[in-house]
């Protein structure tokens, strides 16, 4: 090794860009959040304008805070810390810039599409298919840039933050691609390839793990870099890092079905979703412990340092949210909390508390270092902390109270449990209105705090010269010896990996095998556990040595991480896709929509009705008393995308078909309060004015047929005739009720769709095993 030292300049420009973008988009995303919170209390704020209506803006809010605020913040933190942790400048300046501008273009295109009803109708996966492709391309650019940098590293071993970044990159790629598989019908519209229960399962496999691998693991990585840096204390426990990392990435994937408890989802999946959510509690708290206990010896600094205040509070909120998550995943708790504001409170404890505060702490720590100038105002940052903190507490407390109150009212029965105590949904809604107002105040305070951050940011960097970090390294310092040190054999054929693989295999045999095989699986699982424990106790050092060597080999490490995250998805999704097709779905079978109903359904998706109305009557007595017979798997098997919903701001619609006359729906869309006094539903007057666009209907039906929906081979003329005939019938019925609407208006299609909801064909039970 020569003694000649060279100086490497880090690419900190990209960090500054992402950091700035995160603050700006964060403010916009939160502003939209405050607006939609206000709309829930004051329906007039929808302004009877399509692109300002709640159900169009809600996806904009969620996408903005997830992908724009947290996304940009994550990229800033990952790029800053990775360069320093591997002692190398980012591999490619071009890819970095492409990543940044590509991501901003994606966000701008989301702003230009979502409010205008261009959506896929799946939560946090609303963006239309051309944007989906752009997201995948930019994510690959990010991955190449990241792994290329790892390849050029001068630091042989991978620090724990890098483990979390690796798991983020590969898992998000897998989840995003599978959940966005769809077949286009036009440049702006597509149908997802999965339908009904399959789509529900894939959606929440994605939705839950977007929370896990977009909002959690990258932020944990950021925590592992910035918290010890800011506290100037060692990380609490390396072995806790190892254990909680691997248990977290392995277990998280299985927990998705807890979003579908007590629904028509097959029971074994619900059981997996609930039990794995409970097992997730400890691994999540492992991260919280390592974050909080790293602050031991630095607690006195919290009094003065806003950065540590934000980090300590952020990690605490992470602990709170990850305790609440398993609690809500218990089926009986879920029966009360699901579809209510409790879940809204839960996610905001995570996003405002964990993501928002970690982002703020990181920004305040980075600003002076990226511009080589002290923070403009520390007291303003402290004020931000207190205002933001009070905002979160108000928000979360309001939503807990609101959710539990409404849940209890909706589930309350009277006369010996034979009838509902509050049969009118609106009564429960109007009870929680003061709490929704309190949420608005809490959210407003949080936004105020964020604007203080933006102001502080601006004042700090105004006129300051950006500065890039540097490091001195030996000229010919060996980058690293990739994989050669271990080889395939050393990477995968060794006790820890083999015990994990056999343990998972035996567990699989136990759960899904029959009779003797099942017993053998359980015995194998136990023996495997005991042997692993004994082997670890006697040869623990060997395990440690192996892991130390693995950390020097990024490719085998990445492959093992991928194996850990892929297992849960494979075991849950493949049987569901194979087994639960239209031929084997309990005792109900959905009738394919008529062409007009299909059009109405697309309007239902376009205008975001699913964001307030579920179509899933759970196997719970209060649900059945309120909405009718519980929903069966077969009743939505042809739904691409599924519309089970995740929140009931209004009542369930699974069996609304035929419950009210056509004219009821017409008046209700035009002015909900003329029929439902006290409702907070927006008005949808454009449905009565807009002419139904049938230009892509032929293509839509052919795509539906491709996806397996049994439509006859209609000619375009036959389709048009059917649309016109059904529309005329509905318009004629409206006319006899005194309402004159031309048959070619959108409202006619929507009424056609709503009026057939719940009208599935009862078929003789052909019992198939509910276990795969």
């Amino acid at each position: 090794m020569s003694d000649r030292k060279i100086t490497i300049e880090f690419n900190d420009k990209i960090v500054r860009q992402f950091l700035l973008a995160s603050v700006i988009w964060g403010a916009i995303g939160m502003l939209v959040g405050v607006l939609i919170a206000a709309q829930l209390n004051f329906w007039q704020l929808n302004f009877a304008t399509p692109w300002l209506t709640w159900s169009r803006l809600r996806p904009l809010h969620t996408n903005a805070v997830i992908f724009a605020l947290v996304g940009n913040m994550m990229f800033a933190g990952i790029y800053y810390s990775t360069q320093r942790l591997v002692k190398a400048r980012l591999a490619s300046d071009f890819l970095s810039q492409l990543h940044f501008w590509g991501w901003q273009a994606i966000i701008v295109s989301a702003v230009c599409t979502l409010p205008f009803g261009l959506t896929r109708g799946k939560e946090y996966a609303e963006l239309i298919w051309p944007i989906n492709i752009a997201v995948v391309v930019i994510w690959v650019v990010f991955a190449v840039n990241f792994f290329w940098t790892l390849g050029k590293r001068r630091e042989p071993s991978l620090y724990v933050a890098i483990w979390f970044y690796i798991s983020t990159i590969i898992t998000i790629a897998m989840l995003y691609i599978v959940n966005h598989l769809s077949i286009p019908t036009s440049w702006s519209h597509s149908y997802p390839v999965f339908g009904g229960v399959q789509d529900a399962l894939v959606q929440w496999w994605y939705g839950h793990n977007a929370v896990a691998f977009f909002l959690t693991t990258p932020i944990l990585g950021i925590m592992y870099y910035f918290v010890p840096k800011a506290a100037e204390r060692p990380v609490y426990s390396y072995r806790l890092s190892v254990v909680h990392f691997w248990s977290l990435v392995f277990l998280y994937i299985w927990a998705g079905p807890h979003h579908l408890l007590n629904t028509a989802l097959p029971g074994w999946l619900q059981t997996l979703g609930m039990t794995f959510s409970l097992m997730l509690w400890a691994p999540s708290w492992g991260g919280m412990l390592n974050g909080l206990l790293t602050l031991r010896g630095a607690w006195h600094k919290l009094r003065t340092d806003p950065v540590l205040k934000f980090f300590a509070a952020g990690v605490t909120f992470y602990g709170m949210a990850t305790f609440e998550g398993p609690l809500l995943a218990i089926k009986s708790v879920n029966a009360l909390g699901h579809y209510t504001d409790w879940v809204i409170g839960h996610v905001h404890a995570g996003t405002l508390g964990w993501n928002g505060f970690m982002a703020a702490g990181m920004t305040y720590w980075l600003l002076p270092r990226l511009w080589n100038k002290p923070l403009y105002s520390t007291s303003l940052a402290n004020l931000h902390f207190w205002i933001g903190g009070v905002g979160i507490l108000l928000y979360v407390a309001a939503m807990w109270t609101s959710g539990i109150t409404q849940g209890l009212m909706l589930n309350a029965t009277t006369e010996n449990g034979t009838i509902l105590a509050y049969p009118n949904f609106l009564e429960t809604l109007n009870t929680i209105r003061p709490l929704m107002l309190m949420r608005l105040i809490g959210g407003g305070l949080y936004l105020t705090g964020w604007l203080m951050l933006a102001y502080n940011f601006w004042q700090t960097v105004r006129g300051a010269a950006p500065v890039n970090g540097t490091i001195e390294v030996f000229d010919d310092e060996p980058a690293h010896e990739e994989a050669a040190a271990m080889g395939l054999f050393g990477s995968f054929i060794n006790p820890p990996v083999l015990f994990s693989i056999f343990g998972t295999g035996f567990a699989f045999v136990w759960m899904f095998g029959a009779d003797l095989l099942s017993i053998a699986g359980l015995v194998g699982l136990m023996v495997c556990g005991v042997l692993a424990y004994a082997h670890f106790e006697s040869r623990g050092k060997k395990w440690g040595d192996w892991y130390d060597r693995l950390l020097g080999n990024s490719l085998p490490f990445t492959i093992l991480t991928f194996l850990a995250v892929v297992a849960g998805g494979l075991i849950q999704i493949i049987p569901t896709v194979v087994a639960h097709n239209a031929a084997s779905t309990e005792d109900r079978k959905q009738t394919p929509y008529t062409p007009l109903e299909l059009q109405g359904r697309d309007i239902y998706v376009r205008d975001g009705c699913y964001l307030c109305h579920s179509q899933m009557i759970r196997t719970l007595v209060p649900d059945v008393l309120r909405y009718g017979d519980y929903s069966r798997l077969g009743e939505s098997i042809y739904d691409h995308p599924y519309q089970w919903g995740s929140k009931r701001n209004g009542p369930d619609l699974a069996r609304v078909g035929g419950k009210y006359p056509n004219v009821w729906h017409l008046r209700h869309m035009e002015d909900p309060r003329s029929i439902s006094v006290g409702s907070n539903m927006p008005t949808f007057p454009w449905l009565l004015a807009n002419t139904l666009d049938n230009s892509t209907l032929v293509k839509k039906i052919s795509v539906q047929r491709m996806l397996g929906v049994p439509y006859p081979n209609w000619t375009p003329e036959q389709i048009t005739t059917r649309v016109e005939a059904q529309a005329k019938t509905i318009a004629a019925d409206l006319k006899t009720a005194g309402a004159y609407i031309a048959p070619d208006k959108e409202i006619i299609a929507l009424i056609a769709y709503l009026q057939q909801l719940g009208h599935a064909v009862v078929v003789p039970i052909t019992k198939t095993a509910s276990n795969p």
Partner: protein
Amino acid sequence: MTPTPNSTTEDPIRPHTFDGIQEYDKRLPNWWLMTLYVSIVFWVGYWSYYEWFRVGLSGPQRVEQALAQIEAMKLASAPALDDASLWKMSRNPVFVEAGKATVNANCVACHLASLRGKGENPTAIGPDLTDTKWIHGGNPMDLYRTVTQGVLVKGMPTWGPVLGPKKIAEAVAYVLSKHTEGEPIEVDPSAAPPPPAK
């Protein structure tokens, strides 16, 4: 050996540092490990109970059982109603007031607060309940059945499972309070007869 205040002697620090970040290698807290182990044991037990031995009832089984119990209770406690008793209730202010509350919460969207429906405003959805023209039968028990079972083709929802027999009887009493026993009534011959009692 004298204990030193420097905790690093008891807490081994890993030799390698990353960008100046050090790592302790402390033992995992026992309560933390117990939480993990207990949740794993719970998974084995819960899966065995519900999915392996199928001792626990599935969601649909459980809800079917509960609904059967509710139906049995309703059958056992159904009030003995007839035209005469409903007329009697319609003259009792306690019943009428209770019925008015139920009607105002559930029925006025279509039949209006005056109960005059289309009679007051032709664009209203529901018919007039105060005149002497009836569509599905005008005897008190006809009204009771219409409310309970609904007339789906005409848009009258099925209120039986939502309101229960007591509240429906009260609501009918309130409607009847706008009428007098023995008044001449007209029944629409073209409309479907009131659905038969179950």
